[in-house]
């Protein structure tokens, strides 16, 4: 029972990060190969706070969110101001992620590559509560004027700019919100596993986040959420397959892309399946 609970909790933590990337990639249309860095910043900021200063978790969690959001400005301001096209942006943020990993490995405050053993502070209540708040706020945010502006930018950046949208500001806002959600996910992860090390926040993790968003469907919240749950739970369920579980995961991705290139719920929501088609 403990084991199943743990898997579900990890899936819920992962969902928050995927939710964050869905805002940026699925709705705003910019690809990122570096969002694991924001998860890492959230994890390490909160972890360092609780480890070195015994900060309470209700303080460390928002601090992780804020740190991730602020650090996204560092990469977001120069790249988004230069209006890098989507693929170039993905590469730039990939560099950011790798640079961060190297920093984490060499700083003494993070205990370097050996990792940081923090206390296990985020129980199911924290995780489920944070997930609920994030889902609620993100859904509202995307239903608001910002959601519409993000989608307009995704659909046609030139037309969006000529409709009076400040491309730089809106893309940056999308990045900050998205990084903040990843930061929340990181803070929860650190205090769930009670151990973090730089190798947990690499390109592999960024790719998995992106895979969940693409396979779940662009412009959808529920699609990526469902897929991220499956992607976290499936490898655990397939443990009996031993070494074949990673190819099985890869095969699933390939099959989704062949038979549903728009993703599980591309440009739709789960609730919309029973009502009219959303965007």
């Amino acid at each position, binding site marked *: 029972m403990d084991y199943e609970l743990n898997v579900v909790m990890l899936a819920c933590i992962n969902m928050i990060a995927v939710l964050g990337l869905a805002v940026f990639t699925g709705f705003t249309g910019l690809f990122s190969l570096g969002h694991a860095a924001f998860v890492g910043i959230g994890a390490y900021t909160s972890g360092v706070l609780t480890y070195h200063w015994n900060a309470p978790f209700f303080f460390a969690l928002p601090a992780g969110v804020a740190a991730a959001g602020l650090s996204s400005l560092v990469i977001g301001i120069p790249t988004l101001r230069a209006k890098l096209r989507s693929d170039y942006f993905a590469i730039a943020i990939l560099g950011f992620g790798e640079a961060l990993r190297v920093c984490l490995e060499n700083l003494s405050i993070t205990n370097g590559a050996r990792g940081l053993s923090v206390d296990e502070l985020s129980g199911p209540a924290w995780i489920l509560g944070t997930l609920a708040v994030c889902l609620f706020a993100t859904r*509202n945010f995307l239903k608001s004027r910002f959601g*519409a502006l993000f989608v307009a930018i995704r659909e046609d950046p030139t037309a969006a*700019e000529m409709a009076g949208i400040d491309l730089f500001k809106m893309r940056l806002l999308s990045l900050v919100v998205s990084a903040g959600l990843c930061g929340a996910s990181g803070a929860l992860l650190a205090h769930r596993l009670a151990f973090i090390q730089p190798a947990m926040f690499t390109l592999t993790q960024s790719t998995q986040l992106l895979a969940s968003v693409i396979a779940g469907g662009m412009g959808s919240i529920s699609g990526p959420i469902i897929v991220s749950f499956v992607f976290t739970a499936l490898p655990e369920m397939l443990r009996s397959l031993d070494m074949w579980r990673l190819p099985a995961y890869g095969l699933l991705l390939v099959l989704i892309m062949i038979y549903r290139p728009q993703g599980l719920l591309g440009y739709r929501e789960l609730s919309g399946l029973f009502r009219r088609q959303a965007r």
Partner: protein
Amino acid sequence: MTTPMEPPSKPSLPPLLEVRGLSRSFGGIHAVEELSFDVAQDGIMGLIGPNGAGKTTVFNLITGAYRPTAGTICLRGIDLTKKRPHEIVRAGVSRTFQNIRLFNRMTCLENVMVPLLARGKSMLGTFFRTPFARGEEQRARETALAVMKDVGLADAAHRVASTLPYGLQRKLEIARALACGFSGQGPSVQGPSVQRPSAQGPRLLLLDEPAAGMNDAETRELGEVILKVQKDFGVTMMLIEHHIELVMDICTHVAVMDRGTLLAEGSPRDVRGDERVIAAYLGRPRARRELERT
């Protein structure tokens, strides 16, 4: 309000847009060179010329998509050349595109709401759907619907933009460009159509080949829509167009460009008679025949 084919009723009115010495080169190519012209308030100015004359470049310079190499563009005395594109939109200039650019997966209503929402003020409230944020969206929706009604798109409001037939997509683009001029902050719109206070609505609407790909009947209908929009919204227009008949019918003033420079300008009647224009642009036998017919 002026009717087409007449000079503006108040000739003393300062021009809405003043372009002076405008140049833009790409590498060694001078796309636009030392271009100067005025756009009179409340008129429809036609911008014609052979392909590659630099007409669309002029639009891109006015809207801030390109920075000019030299020269100034002033809207009511405010220099636009230092402003970023969205600031130029807020100053009152909006445009349509030669190859239609809609937000394809959004509904028509959402397309028209985007420029209004772009001017919204709600920030943190959007996370909690506060009454202020919702009220703002509601006002944007009402204004957008009113604009769509005026353009004749009310029935298509909830259709996805990409499913519209070509002609309606053109209209939708015009509706979206018109919505750029409304702040979305004012009191909600009452009655059947937008009652335009003087400070609202775009001041200058740039239409880039709105009749491209249309047959004669569709072009005529588009001409009527343009005239109606001009009248209802009191908006000044610039029109790039290759359908000469449309230009001659609705424009109050015509400028002819060739190889980045201004070849001639004046009333449609004057331009039609200009020898250089005929040589450079209307010299082809078919165009000349069309002219003789009109």
